[in-house]
């Protein structure tokens, strides 16, 4: 059997600290670090929401794959940033490294611009860990 990137307990704890510090403390509802097979690696939330993270991750992996295939058709390697806006809550996807995605669910109290900045910072810090 093949395994995705093997994470140690310490790595997972450090990633959780980064996500808490950069995103949950900013007011984000929940964050999911996942692989493109749809596995959930880390998930944190603010305590105000109870999303079905496993189903979300499965659909997000499919969605990301579908959008990447669309990118290829128009001659792009990929769209590295995806964003779905809802009335109350929105979802932001960002690629961390090959095979890893960061999913952020946030409400209208968080501005998209600021969120993108913080996601970029979190990703930079996570990349240094793995």
């Amino acid at each position: 059997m093949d395994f995705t990137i093997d994470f140690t307990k310490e790595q997972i704890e450090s990633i959780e600290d980064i996500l808490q510090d950069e995103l949950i403390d900013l007011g984000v509802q929940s964050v999911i670090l996942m692989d493109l097979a749809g596995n959930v690696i880390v998930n944190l939330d603010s305590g105000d929401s109870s999303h079905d993270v496993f189903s979300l991750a499965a659909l997000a992996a499919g969605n990301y794959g579908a959008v990447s295939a669309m990118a290829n058709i128009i001659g792009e390697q990929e769209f590295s940033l995806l964003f779905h806006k809802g009335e109350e809550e929105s979802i932001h996807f960002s690629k961390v490294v090959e095979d890893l995605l960061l999913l952020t669910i946030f409400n209208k109290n968080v501005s998209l611009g600021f969120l993108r900045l913080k996601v970029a910072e979190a990703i930079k810090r996570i990349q240094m860990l793995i």
Partner: protein
Amino acid sequence: MALINPKKREVQVKVVYYGPGRGGKTTNLEYVNQKFRKRILNEMVTVKTYGDRTLFFDFLPIDIGKIKGHSIKIQLYTVPGQVKYNATRRLVLRGVDGIVFVADSMDLRREMNIRSLQNLKENLETFNKNIFHIPLVMQYNKRDLADEGIPILPMETMQKDLNSRLRAPFFPASAVSGDNVAATMKKIIALTVGSLRKKLE
């Protein structure tokens, strides 16, 4: 690609139900969803198109308890069977750990089964996976149609067409009545999780 989370002591394993369109892949998952309700924490996710056909995939996570102190979550997926959705099938196969090939026993579907199995082999190759090396279970579905007088393929013919070289474990089944649906699932879980034990030690 199974994922081990050493902090939560949790393992996620991906099993995909593959096969020709209208073969009963979704019906397999629907039966599991009803039968094993207690082990399923979330609702089954299904992305359908007009006429109740699977457009993207179905998804059903199921908890099977603990192995070596790790809780094992099996993520069951189906692919869309229709020929035109090959790009989607490839997406769903990404990171697959085990496969159930759901073949249609109807006489008329003989060619479709063979083509779908060939398509599985090719799609696995795009992820550098070999159909001979991945845990695989064959399910010959719709055996119940014989009772209604609909011509079905003899088991020997299906074995010869699909399983003569693969030599995978196989089950005659009826996803509609649930016959051998659980047995198929238990077999693929046993094969897939068997290779995990060593890693968890």
